[in-house]
């Protein structure tokens, strides 16, 4: 607790020596270090939802891509993709309703549509995705291939939304860490969703003993992880520019989870193993499986750590006030 009286700052009004836009790094005189923002009430449940939504969205997209562009050997991927998509259908909405603080009024989510609210947009994405994925999956089970091909298109489009709308949901807040780099966060979430989907399909393929599409899935996972890595780098650079870089620093638990989990497991390990495979050439199945698992774990760790680090950044007035000085620069 600083001494009660705060040193006076230059007057702000007419002869404003204090310019909010100047990027000086002198510590801001805060109001007794009290939080300037309110942190969100989102925790593991929301992180799990985002992970599952991204995973099932990505799986539906890959399945559709395989169905349209792929050959007979990709039939397994299509079937398994559509089944994985059902995860989002069966676990998504319950998780969200469970996280509401007045769950008995969950249906009010469908009361209105506001294009400025990613959660409102997301509600319709999730609903349409669930509807069409369900129809595609039943068509798949019943063997009506034509029907499945018809319904899989809207499902895939909604699936694309599922992989990334949650990023825009987070960034459309005033929480410094989420709001600092809208595009990078979208990249991270999209890449992470695809990576998770591809990894899940690899694992499912191995379990089914049909590894025909393994090389495609590996390539796809590599691309997704690379996208996520680019997003992460861009985000880091942006945070440093805004002076709120220490949000993801190691000394906080969320920072460590982000560094080790999201970046480490989610991107570094898979990139290294794929690079190793390219150079070394000898496919070692156990390595592929562990990489897939690492991608999945990294994807969930990313969501968990971004949520936690974001909430912490809202609690630190130095960061929220500094972030709130930058907006006019853009």
């Amino acid at each position, binding site marked *: 607790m600083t001494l009660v009286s705060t040193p006076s700052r230059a007057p702000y009004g007419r002869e404003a020596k204090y310019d909010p836009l100047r990027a000086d790094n002198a510590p801001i005189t805060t109001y007794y270090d009290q939080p300037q923002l309110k942190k969100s009430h989102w925790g593991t449940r929301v992180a799990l939802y985002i992970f599952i939504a991204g995973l099932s969205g990505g799986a539906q997209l890959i399945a559709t891509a395989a169905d349209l562009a792929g050959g007979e050997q990709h039939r397994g991927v299509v079937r398994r993709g559509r089944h994985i998509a059902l995860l989002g259908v069966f676990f998504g909405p319950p998780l969200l309703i469970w996280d509401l603080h007045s769950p008995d009024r969950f249906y009010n989510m469908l*009361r*209105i549509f*506001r294009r400025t609210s990613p959660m409102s947009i997301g509600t319709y994405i999730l609903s349409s995705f669930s509807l069409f994925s369900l129809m595609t999956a039943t068509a798949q089970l019943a063997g009506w291939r034509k029907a499945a091909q018809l319904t899989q298109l809207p499902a895939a489009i909604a699936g694309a939304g599922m992989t990334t709308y949650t990023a825009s949901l987070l960034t459309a807040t005033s929480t410094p860490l989420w709001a600092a780099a809208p595009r990078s966060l979208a990249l991270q979430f999209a890449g992470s969703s695809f990576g998770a989907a591809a990894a899940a399909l690899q694992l499912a393929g191995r379990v089914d003993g049909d590894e025909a599409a393994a090389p495609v899935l590996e390539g796809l996972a590599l691309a997704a992880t690379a996208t996520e890595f680019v997003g992460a780098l861009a985000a880091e650079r942006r945070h440093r520019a805004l002076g709120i870089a220490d949000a993801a620093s190691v000394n906080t638990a969320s920072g460590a989870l982000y560094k080790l989990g999201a970046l480490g497991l989610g991107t570094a390990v898979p990139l290294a193993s794929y690079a190793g495979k390219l150079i070394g050439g000898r496919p070692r199945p156990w390595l592929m499986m562990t990489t897939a698992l690492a991608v999945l774990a990294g994807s969930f760790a990313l969501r968990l750590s971004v949520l936690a680090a974001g909430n912490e950044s809202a609690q630190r007035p130095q960061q929220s006030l500094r972030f709130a000085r930058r907006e006019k620069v853009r």
Partner: protein
Amino acid sequence: MTKIHRRFADRVAGFVRDWSLPRQIAGESPYSKAAESSLSQNLRPRLTEADKVGTIICPYCAVGCSQLAYAKNGRIIHVEGDPRSPINQGTLCPKGSATFGWLTSERRLDHVLYRAPYGEHWERRPLAWAMDRIAWLVKQTRDETFVDELPDGTLVNHTLAMASLGGATLDNEENYLIKKLFCGGLGMVWIENQARV
């Protein structure tokens, strides 16, 4: 089962009544008109339910701000500034604004508590009993200690054995009766209040 059905039906009816999508499609803005719920439409200040209102004077400091006290079914439901008074023109300080909180404070007593000599806890006693007991104690103490003249013959007609503290926050009428009864009637001289604190 019917109860649950009815509740379900109420919810659906409520949802449809306040559903914004059709109003949104019909052109109302989703940020204002379309989003307005029935609760907001029929909203009224709770003072409209008051069946009685009167002007009281703030019970805290001596500036004498006027307040409007609203009551419903014999209970005060709100107290705020009286805009007609030239003293406070509707404004109130933090204490005056808390008058409603004072009247409805959970720490308020509404029954008589009695502690017997050497007792270790309060007991509840009816008001009438307490009044009789106090009257008897006053008479007994006065009779035993009343002095009409000092040894040197000076007239005093007083008792030094009873005292009264109170009433800078009491009404003038209350202070008047206290002085009249205690001084004019019983001959008490130890009569004081917060004026000297």
